[in-house]
């Protein structure tokens, strides 16, 4: 068998077979279906009379009416929006500072790894650890600030990675050219570096916002008695089945508001404003 001359040829055939391209194509389509079908189904169920049945049908907006009649979720939503906005801004500023400095270090890989470890630490562990330090060790009263702290630790690595995409590509000779033409360090930053890093900075803010807005695990440990949107939804869904339909409605509204918004922001950043390409 080892001398069979047809053997390598046959293997070659398989390697060049069109099936791989087909497999990739259909696999990709299946992935896309897996992402968007549940979202579409959620929206359909949110406007169904009996959403817990799992099959859309007998459409009505009664759960939306119930949602708007219920003021309980206003505060958690407001809290989430404020915390997420603050975290987004802080992430943008801190990640920009760190992201500009990192590439010029002698061993940036090691430092970067230390910064991004929170990505791999289980939310439970990070939440518990922060809880122990703030509540048990420092004896502080937990609240929105501690939730925000947990969110920052969680969101910062994402923001940093996004900033690094633009800072590592940034050509420092442009800074020298700016100085050479007479610009102070401040002017060089605002006139040259900032506009070129801008897509990354906004991306970092956006990711900081999203990571914070969706965060649940760390918030559970650090919330004290306050509620954010994910905590409220989780409590509602866990405690009373009757509340589930209005959570479907709320989730649908969030989806329909944020998705186009994000698409718009990204389009603005990478298509409309990006002059560097």
């Amino acid at each position, binding site marked *: 068998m080892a001398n069979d001359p047809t053997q390598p040829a046959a293997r070659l055939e398989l390697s060049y077979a069109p099936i791989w391209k087909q497999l990739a194509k259909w696999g990709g389509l299946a992935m896309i279906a897996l992402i968007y079908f549940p979202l579409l189904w959620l929206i359909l169920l949110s406007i169904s009379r009996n959403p817990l049945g799992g099959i859309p049908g007998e459409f009505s907006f009664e759960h939306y009416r119930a949602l708007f009649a219920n003021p309980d979720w206003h505060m958690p939503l407001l809290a989430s929006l404020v915390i997420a906005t603050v975290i987004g801004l802080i992430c943008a500023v801190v990640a920009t500072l760190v992201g500009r400095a990192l590439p010029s270090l002698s061993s940036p890989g090691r430092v970067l790894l230390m910064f991004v470890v929170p990505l791999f630490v289980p939310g439970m562990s990070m939440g518990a650890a922060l809880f122990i330090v703030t509540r048990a060790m420092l004896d502080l009263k937990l609240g929105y600030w501690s939730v925000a702290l947990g969110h920052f630790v969680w969101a910062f690595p994402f923001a940093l990675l996004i900033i690094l995409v633009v800072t590592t590509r940034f*050509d420092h*000779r442009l800074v020298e050219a700016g100085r050479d033409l007479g610009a102070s360090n401040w002017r060089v930053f605002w006139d040259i570096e900032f506009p070129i890093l801008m897509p990354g900075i906004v991306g970092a803010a956006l990711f900081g916002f999203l990571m914070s807005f969706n965060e649940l695990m760390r918030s559970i440990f650090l919330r004290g008695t306050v509620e954010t949107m994910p905590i409220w939804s989780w409590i509602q869904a866990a405690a009373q089945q009757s509340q589930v339909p209005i959570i479907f409605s709320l989730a649908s509204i969030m989806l329909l508001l944020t998705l186009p918004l994000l698409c718009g922001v990204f389009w603005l950043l990478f298509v409309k404003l990006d002059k560097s390409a």
Partner: protein
Amino acid sequence: MTDSTAVPMLEVEDVVHRYGTVTALSHVSLSALKGEFLTILGSSGSGKTTMLRVISGLERPTSVRRLRIGGVDVAHLPAAKRNCTTVFQSYALFPHMNVIENVAYGLRIRKMNSTDALREAHRALGMVQLDSKADRRISQLSGGERQRVALARAVVTQPSILLLDEPLGALDERLREDMQIELVELQRTLGMTFIYITHSQEEALTMSDRVVLMSHGRIVQSGGPLDLFDRPNSRFAAGFMGYENILQARLIGREGDLGLVEFPGGLRLQGLITAPALDTGTPVHLAIRAERISALAPDAPEGIAARITSRVYRGKYTDISLDTPAGPLRMRSWHGAQDESREIRRIGWSTNDAVIFAVD
């Protein structure tokens, strides 16, 4: 009024610069007059770019005794406050600004009002024949056009000194030759002091009023283009300036600049001594350019005997390798000349074309 051409625009004295344990500049002094085209010539690692960065202020030297631009002490001033601008090798154009915004940037920094700044920027662009592309984005320009934008951006603020860091390095040969001429014309028009960095001896010879040859962080030789081309005073300078034949001999007599050397086989030849203070009896090099050697009649009284070992056709010329009592030599015969194909028994050259300097 004083004679403005005698004003030293740039004075650098005894600059030393080290990167860690590597010495990039070792006690270098340099000066340039107003309106002078000074070229710093050297291979990569010679310290020429470091020298430029020290002048521009982008690099703070380890030590410097004196650093003046236009009579102003700038040793402790940051790059932004020095009256000189740089045309970078990479051009370093701002990708998020269009052509005219790039050119006007230096004026904007100087708080010139925007109407005047725009007018000046257009004028500078006109000077490099690029006014029609003022609104283009940088990514839409060719390499040669980017080079011109970089040039316009650097001269628009009318600095005392323009520093050019191998600005033509990235261009193709044809464009480079055109730009060499344009740069010299621009320099004459502006009357600005140009400090030009290059590794190309051809560029240095074509454009400069004065050439400074650097190697290993030191100035090896400086002078007019002709001095460097025809009167190298060291092994390195001769090699860098393209001397194909650098022979070993011993100086056995001198009379003024004229020296007599003896080769190991006993052959004696004359040449011009370019290095001062060369004593008789010391080992020396005698160097001669391949194209300055010509064939003589076999029975000619002057010259030396030669035997052809190989011929290499190189298009515009043919390189002929010869065996001679002075050692192996290379002579160059231009295309169409007789020597290209005929037998050669004896060769010679003008005494002025052979230079003698010390063995390093």
